[in-house]
């Protein structure tokens, strides 16, 4: 204790106040709600410095690196948080500060916030872009599985793979799928499979659990390892409703480990059927090709075995052609002749002279053919043509036939 009126140094004063603050029961462990402002993460030390404030007051706060590393989300200016810690004095400045040991987002869960922040960050980087996704091999020969060795999820996958596609080989890479260090072992698994070129497809996953259980699959480094994998990756974490960062980074998200096994391989029966079909197509095409060639050969052989045969075949063909041409021409000539005869007969039949020869005659008066009794009167001169000449006569009277 200082005695009045002892003069003390500034350092002594600050040290004294600091000791008072640190010995206070309330100030040595309390929680404070406030909004973050003036936030900085020291680039070298990794300590967080910020101001906590409400509507009318503010207090400086610091969170050392060892504590800051345990905060899953990234604190930001304007974020409402609840911090735990103690109050002390920074002797150099004589200012009192809140020394933060834990930080929770006010309102939503820390993990949920961290998840959303990481998802937004990696999405902005393009890590989840569709264009980055690699196609899966249609008939994988070796399938790497990174998961917990004793888990039911692994057994489910092995059962489905051996039922659907027993031709494959599974390369198991045992990993821890929850708890501290789990992300590390998952990353190691992916890298080891890539380094050994051990497989042509990787399934990484685990069965269902709480958000904390699945947390390793929301690790940033794991997401980057998945994206960097040279071998396509299917992620299969938890149940259908669980989405993890690993799911977004993977080439394909399977809703469950069992679904991943279904998606990873074709059904062997389908493949066998397809192979049989391909075989039948090849076989049919070749048989048709050979039969066609055989037929052509037989046809050629039939006529063209010797030079004489070739000549004979050509001669026969020429004869046949000549016959055809001749017959054609004659037919045309005959046709023309027949038609002429017919027309001649027709003309002859219709000739007036022909009619006269049958006893009919043609009478005219003044050069006009007489067609009616009324056309002439007594005394008119008529000229009547018969087959062999003309008769001249004079009309003595007319009688008109009444009908």
């Amino acid at each position: 204790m200082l005695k009045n009126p002892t003069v003390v140094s500034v350092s002594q004063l600050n040290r004294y106040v600091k000791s008072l603050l640190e010995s206070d029961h309330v100030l040595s462990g309390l929680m404070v709600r406030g909004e973050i402002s003036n936030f900085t993460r020291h680039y070298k030390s990794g300590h967080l410095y910020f101001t906590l404030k409400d509507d009318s007051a503010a207090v400086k706060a610091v969170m050392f690196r060892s504590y800051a590393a345990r905060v899953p989300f990234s604190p930001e200016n304007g974020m409402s948080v609840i911090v735990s810690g103690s109050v002390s004095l920074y002797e150099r400045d004589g200012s009192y500060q809140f020394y933060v040991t834990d930080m929770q987002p006010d309102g939503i869960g820390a993990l949920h916030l961290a998840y959303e922040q990481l998802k937004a960050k990696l999405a902005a980087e393009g890590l989840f872009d569709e264009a980055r996704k690699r196609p899966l091999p249609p008939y994988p020969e070796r399938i790497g599985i990174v998961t917990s060795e004793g888990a039911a999820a692994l057994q489910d996958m092995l059962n489905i793979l051996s039922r659907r596609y027993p031709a494959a080989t599974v390369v198991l890479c045992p990993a821890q799928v929850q708890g501290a260090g789990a992300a590390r072992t998952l990353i190691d698994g992916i890298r080891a499979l890539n380094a050994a070129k051990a497989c042509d497809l990787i399934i990484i996953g685990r069965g269902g659990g709480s958000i904390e259980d699945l947390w390793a699959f929301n690790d940033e480094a794991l997401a980057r390892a998945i994206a960097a994998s040279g071998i396509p990756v299917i992620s299969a974490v938890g149940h259908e409703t669980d989405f993890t960062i690993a799911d977004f980074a993977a080439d394909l998200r399977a809703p469950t480990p069992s679904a991943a096994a279904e998606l990873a391989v074709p059904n062997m029966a389908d493949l066998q059927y397809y192979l049989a079909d391909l075989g039948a197509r090849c076989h049919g095409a070749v048989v048709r090709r050979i039969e066609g060639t055989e037929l052509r050969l037989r046809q050629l052989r039939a006529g063209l075995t010797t030079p004489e045969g070739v000549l004979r075949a050509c001669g026969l063909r020429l004869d046949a052609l000549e016959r055809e041409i001749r017959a054609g021409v004659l037919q045309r000539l005959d046709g023309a002749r027949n038609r002429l005869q017919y027309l001649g007969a027709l003309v002859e039949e219709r000739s007036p002279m022909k009619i006269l020869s049958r006893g009919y005659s043609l009478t005219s008066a003044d050069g006009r053919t007489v067609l009616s009794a009324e056309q002439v009167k007594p005394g008119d001169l008529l000229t009547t043509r018969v087959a062999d000449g003309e008769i001249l006569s004079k009309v003595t009277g007319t009688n008109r036939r009444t009908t």
Partner: protein
Amino acid sequence: MTKTMTLEAAVARLEEIAAKLGGDVSIDDAVKLYGEAVKLLDFANGKLEAAKLKVEKLAAPKETEDEPV
């Protein structure tokens, strides 16, 4: 046909041969291609028939500390 032939490559080649045979090829080529197809089918069916899922374990990898988490 080599030992490194994969089922995927075999199926792809079979598809190619089936397409070629369905088109215009000489009889010599057709017979050659058919011979290849028969071998590929034997290979592929051999891989699938009587297969039993094999499970290998990759030796536990060393911790890689090359990148900060």
